[in-house]
């Protein structure tokens, strides 16, 4: 009992307390209660945040990029696994899948910059092959309006992890044998994929996918380097408010971080609740 209590105390002291105090500090700052330039309690900073069109577009863009990247990575990983499962288990391929994991977000962003930019490798090859006359004619793949470069880079970082996890789940759930049993019982290939393999894999990957959504939603380096100033992702928006020249923007930046934390907590809480209900029903 004592050991358990000590563990809880340790967790509360070193994990929860710093985060909670940071959250409270940000909250107080956002309401003007603290801060070197504060003039007392006010809702003005929150009002300014909600009135800023840039904030809403940042929120929508972050959700869109995170969701699209997640679905794309999942789709790629599932397609790769279900069509090349045996090949993926081979030592060389298995090792190659780990390579993107060695890349930090910053390095991956720079790689994309070098490859996809108007004067990058792809553009140079295309001009060399006579596909384009000038570098400006090469399509915009980074800092582009559709956030292609950002989604591409985040997908590059995400899908190998999903593939490795799904491969592990595939083996743990013994899906190879289950698929054979289903085939023996007369199931078509389509039935095997959609009624046996996909439900089992998606059930196992969902908690990780949700955590990844949170990670992608808060991605910073990649959208900073490969995104645009307008719209910008939430993390970049907040950092602009923190880092630029206007000190009166600081409480607005804190409002935004408070909102971000609440949003993530709500999301995780909703999923937790859903998972608990689902477990109870089983």
């Amino acid at each position: 009992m004592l050991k358990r209590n000590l563990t809880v105390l340790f967790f509360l002291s070193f994990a929860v307390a710093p985060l909670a105090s940071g959250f409270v500090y940000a909250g107080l700052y956002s309401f003007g209660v603290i801060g070197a330039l504060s003039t007392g309690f006010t809702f003005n900073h929150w009002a300014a945040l909600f009135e800023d069109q840039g904030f809403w577009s940042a929120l929508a863009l972050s959700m869109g990029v995170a969701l699209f990247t997640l679905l794309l990575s999942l789709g790629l990983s599932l397609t790769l696994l279900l069509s090349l499962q045996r090949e993926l288990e081979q030592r060389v391929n298995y090792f190659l899948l780990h390579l993107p994991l060695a890349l930090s977000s910053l390095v991956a962003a720079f790689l994309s910059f070098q490859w996809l930019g108007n004067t990058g490798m792809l553009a140079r090859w295309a001009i060399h092959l006579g596909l384009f006359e000038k570098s400006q004619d090469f399509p915009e793949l980074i800092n582009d309006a559709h956030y292609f470069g950002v989604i591409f880079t985040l997908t590059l970082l995400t899908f190998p992890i999903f593939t490795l996890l799904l491969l592990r789940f595939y083996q743990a759930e013994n899906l190879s044998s289950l698929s054979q049993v289903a085939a023996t019982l007369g199931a078509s290939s389509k039935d095997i994929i959609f009624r046996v393999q996909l439900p089992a894999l998606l059930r196992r990957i969902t908690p990780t996918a949700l955590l990844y959504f949170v990670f992608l939603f808060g991605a910073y380096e990649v959208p900073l380097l490969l995104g645009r100033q307008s719209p910008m992702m939430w993390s970049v928006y907040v950092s602009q408010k923190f880092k630029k020249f206007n000190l009166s923007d600081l409480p607005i930046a804190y409002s935004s971080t408070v909102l971000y934390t609440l949003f993530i907590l709500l999301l995780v809480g909703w999923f937790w609740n859903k998972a608990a209900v689902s477990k109870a029903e089983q």
Partner: protein
Amino acid sequence: MTLGLLMMVLNGCNHPSKTGIETDLLDLPFETITSKAQNTTVHMMMWQGDPLINQYMSDWVVPEVKSRFNIDLQIAPGQGTEIVKVLLSEIEAGKKNSNLDLCWINGETFFQLRQIQALFGPFTARLPNAQYIDFQNPFIGIDFQQPVDGYECPWGNVQLALICDSLRTPNPPLTMDELEKWWRKNPGKFTIPYEFTGMTLLKSWMIALAGGGNALDGPFDQKKYAMLSAKLWEFINRNKRYFWRKGETFPESVAAMHTMFVNQELDLTMSNNDSEVDNKIQQNIFPTTAKSFVLKSGTIQNSHFLGIPAQAANKAGAMTVINFLISPEAQLRKLNPKVWGDGSVLAMDKLPAEFQAQFLEVSKRKNSTMRATIQPFALKEPAPEYMVRLYEDFRKKVIEQ
């Protein structure tokens, strides 16, 4: 935890104030200040984005202050807003001794630090080498329309310059009209960095649109800003389709512009340092055919400064280092484009005779236009609020349009 939060809240209300010890320090003879600085460490924060500047500091200044004053000068990377955030956090946390003793700042940072009373001073009058500084020069003695009042010491002086490759652009545009024509003839070859240098160009254009000269002198004027910025956004928006990426996005740094200039993705880049071309050619970054020029309507000239945080633990050390950095010897070395190429803040006529000839010799430039040639086109920095507003409105009125 509650107690901790309460402490933070209470500390958040604290503001630094001048203590008796600090007042005493300013009353001491400088020799005593220097002797107090012996065997101490000075923690400096400065922008470290240029290898030549870093070399000047680490390979020359650091060993020199060590051998002359026995001071360990520790340099940490960080610029404008980062310095403000560090000092603001320390003030809000009620920290009595700052982690910083010295920082490299300029106008908008000075404005922010004065807002939160984070600077120590007035100290410049106590520095013996301040006698050589050209304080009468409005580009040196006044920072973004704010009197320096001894709370920061001028360190270098630069003027915004545009940069082209004389092979690709033999006749660069020299007026705003010529710029418009050039953009139309060379679509996609120009952009504005969405940072300090870009905003400095916007200020230069805004002054030009106001009729030039001293149009934006004095404190921030909301009416003037509204009228002139409307003209500025109209000027940019009617041309931005000819900018890089059709003006839908802008690079986040001038370094990114330099890269695109070298890759020939852009034909023009810019620098806040009018002698940076020579500096970059020296580093084999720019082609030897690169050259700088300024618009006839003028470009902003400003100074950068050294400040001491109000809560600095080693103010004596910081003052000793600053006095060395503004010495004729240190300024002369810094002026050399092979070393840094940073304009001096010293008045030639005040310098000892042996230095005057050396300054004239080192001032000679190769690919950068001579300072004397561009001086008539120098514009004063307007009040810092113009920068703050331009930065925000550039996003709203140009990028988001």
